[in-house]
């Protein structure tokens, strides 16, 4: 069982969110912080569109040969001294993680920001089994203190303002001076950094996600801005990477192309502050760790040979990669495969008019916004998450900014087709649509009935331009007026004025 879902009560979730003035105020940050910056970053890179096309092809190729690349990746990780674990579902992924922690007697684990560990509900599971997880990404740390899930895939605490965060820090950091000043964002940051520094030093295991897994080299990559991911994976004795199967990319060259899109699409940065590549555990030296200074002139080959002899000066002693499926392999070869190109930049939700109004929690599971509306039904079922692909105006802004050119509206429509085939949509919608289709399929009957109906509506609305209430249209008139039609239909009037052409 993955993390708990409330996606089935999407409507109630959304109503609650929109009634929360503090939340809707905080959500304005999404529009202010991401949209203009992304547009500027994209416009400043002449080859941005060409890169999107390349990135799409790279991922399409990878997905078409995913089995081969996974095997190659596994062989490379093993050769570099690491371990690869394949987890079919959330339960397996959690258990493998716990077993690794238990083997080294871990009491505390630090965590870099990872949506996959959110998906499998790792924190609650570790805690229930006596291992304390500590989130070290600032946003994740804040929501962990609040017992919340992320509301955004790259800005997990975007639904909160600094006053809310201040009050959480005062509630939890009781060892600090109660009269300290926390009114500035930087003071909150400094406090979190000081508290977390202690956690980094005592952690037995560090768990991160991965933005990419590179088959060519057996490397995992994390892309961060705070440096917490690096401390998480370098300081403890054991580094565990948890990533889903579609994070695979064939080569370093491929990943360097996609990296040029990722930060620009996400935050509008050219690159994120840290892009960290991890290949295997700390390499042990063949000789003692004595450092000889070497000469300035020594060539690169000699330098490398000396580094191998000496071994790495830091890094974990054990390096594990848990590769999670959890429903994704079933998407391969089907109409939702394109979704597996997603690199989790969040551009889709940053530009989504629905997300802007309701925020991420209303979607009810781990992945909000347009990407979630496609992915969530794939992973937890359309019976549970059927609202999500319907709660879109199909405005297409998500697809227009997606660096991987994922046809998000089209795939939401495919979910609607599945729901329609299985009679999952509301009866009233089905009957309404069926009745309309009955007339629309019969042009003569349609012309006659619309002529009568529009004339009747005109009479009903005579002297007024609008209806403030209309029988059968109350779902519309609850929020807005309905214009009174002109009275004669276009086709009837055309025929009358022009004759049949």
């Amino acid at each position, binding site marked *: 069982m993955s993390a708990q879902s409330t996606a089935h009560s999407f409507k109630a979730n959304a109503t609650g969110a929109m009634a929360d003035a503090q939340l809707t105020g905080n959500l304005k940050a999404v529009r202010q912080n991401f949209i203009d910056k992304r547009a500027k970053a994209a416009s400043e890179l002449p080859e941005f569109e060409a890169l999107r096309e390349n990135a799409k092809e790279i991922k399409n190729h990878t997905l078409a040969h995913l089995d081969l690349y996974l095997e190659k990746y596994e062989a490379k990780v093993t050769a570099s001294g690491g371990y690869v674990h394949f987890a079919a579902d959330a339960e397996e992924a959690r258990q493998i993680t716990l077993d690794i922690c238990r083997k080294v007697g871990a009491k505390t684990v630090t965590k870099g920001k990872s949506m996959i560990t959110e998906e499998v509900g790792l924190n609650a599971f570790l805690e229930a089994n006596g291992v304390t997880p500590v989130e070290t990404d600032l946003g994740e740390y804040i929501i962990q203190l609040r017992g919340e899930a992320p509301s955004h895939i790259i800005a997990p605490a975007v639904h909160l303002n600094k006053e809310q965060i201040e009050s959480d820090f005062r509630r939890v950091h009781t060892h600090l001076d109660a009269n300290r000043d926390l009114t500035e964002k930087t003071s909150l940051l400094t406090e979190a950094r000081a508290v977390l520094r202690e956690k980094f030093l005592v952690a037995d295991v560090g768990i991160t996600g991965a933005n990419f897994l590179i088959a060519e080299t057996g490397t995992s990559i994390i892309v961060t801005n705070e440096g917490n991911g690096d401390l998480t994976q370098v300081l403890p004795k054991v580094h565990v990477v948890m990533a889903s199967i579609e994070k695979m990319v064939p080569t370093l060259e491929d990943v360097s192309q996609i990296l040029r899109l990722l930060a620009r699409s996400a935050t509008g940065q050219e690159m994120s502050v840290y892009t960290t590549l991890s290949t295997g555990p700390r390499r042990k030296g063949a000789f003692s760790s004595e450092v000889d200074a070497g000469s300035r002139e020594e060539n690169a080959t000699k330098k490398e040979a000396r580094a191998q002899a000496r071994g790495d000066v830091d890094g974990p002693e054990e390096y594990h990669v848990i590769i999670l499926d959890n429903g994704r392999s079933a998407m391969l070869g089907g109409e939702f495969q394109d979704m597996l190109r997603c690199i989790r930049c969040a551009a889709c939700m940053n530009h989504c008019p629905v997300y802007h109004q309701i925020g991420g929690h209303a979607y009810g599971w781990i992945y909000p916004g347009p990407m979630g509306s496609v992915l969530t039904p794939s992973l937890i079922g359309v019976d549970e998450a059927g609202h999500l692909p319907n709660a879109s105006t199909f405005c297409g802004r998500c697809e227009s900014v997606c660096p991987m050119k994922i046809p998000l509206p089209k795939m939401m429509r495919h979910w609607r087709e599945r729901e329609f085939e299985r009679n999952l949509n509301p009866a009233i919608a089905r009957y309404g649509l069926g009745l309309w289709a009955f007339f629309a399929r019969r042009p003569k009957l349609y012309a006659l009935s619309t002529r009568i109906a529009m004339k009747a509506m005109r009479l009903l609305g005579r002297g007024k331009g609008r209806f403030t209430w209309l029988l059968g249209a109350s779902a519309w008139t609850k*929020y807005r007026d309905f214009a009174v*039609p002109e009275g004669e239909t276009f086709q009837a009037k055309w025929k009358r004025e022009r004759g049949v052409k």
Partner: protein
Amino acid sequence: MPVESLASPDQPGAAPRVALFATCLVDAMRPTVGFAAAKLLEDAGCTVHVPPQTCCGQPAFNNGDRQTSRDLALQMIAAFEPYDYVVVPSGSCGGMISKHYPELFAGDPNLAGRAERLAAKTFELVSFLTDVLGVTSVSATFEGRVTYHDSCSGLRELGIQSQPRKLLASVQGLSLVEMKDNDVCCGFGGTFAVKYGEISDKIVSEKAVNAQASEAGTLLAGDLGCLMNMAGKLSRKGSAMDVRHVAEVLAGMTATPPIGKVTPDAAAKETTPRGTTP
């Protein structure tokens, strides 16, 4: 305008035979838009035909009912394929035919070709005038400030953004002021507006605020669905702002009251009891 663009592709030298698909909303709610489209097309040298028509099938398509979508698409194809062009005063219905019909019949050896051929000659009205016919100006007058909402399908599926602005710039007396977030969805989304009315309401409320803040007297767009949504919200808010389809202004056919409004004369005439002379 380029002379060759006026020719019918089938018969060089003859005026292009344009089938006007008014859309179901224009047909039922606002015939003026259909007549405005016909006038613009005729002024540009086309002959305009109105084949029997109902709906392009978009509501069914977007609600997952593929069979009904295909049935209605076939009905459209049969009625409209004899003409040189199909022109639609709507970006979303135009996009349905030109982008989604080929998807609906992809892989169908009998119908894919017909769907693709119809798609290739189907255009949204304003972009047809500018991009196909090479129209650069219209002979219309409209006194006042207007603002233009970029409807989503027209903008993102068909690339319509500069075309209406270019033609509006040629309208005597008109000045265009851009509103904030003119390219952001109005919250209509077809059945979305009723299935998720509360969310739709929040989105259109913001649109209304932005439109009013532009201080334009009239809000224009190229899709009647979006227009009815925005007009409905503005009037519910008690705004005096007028809302019209862009074709009405370009064709100089603004005698019809704005969407959701009545002229004082018409109101008086309509409310006069039958059998009496005013």
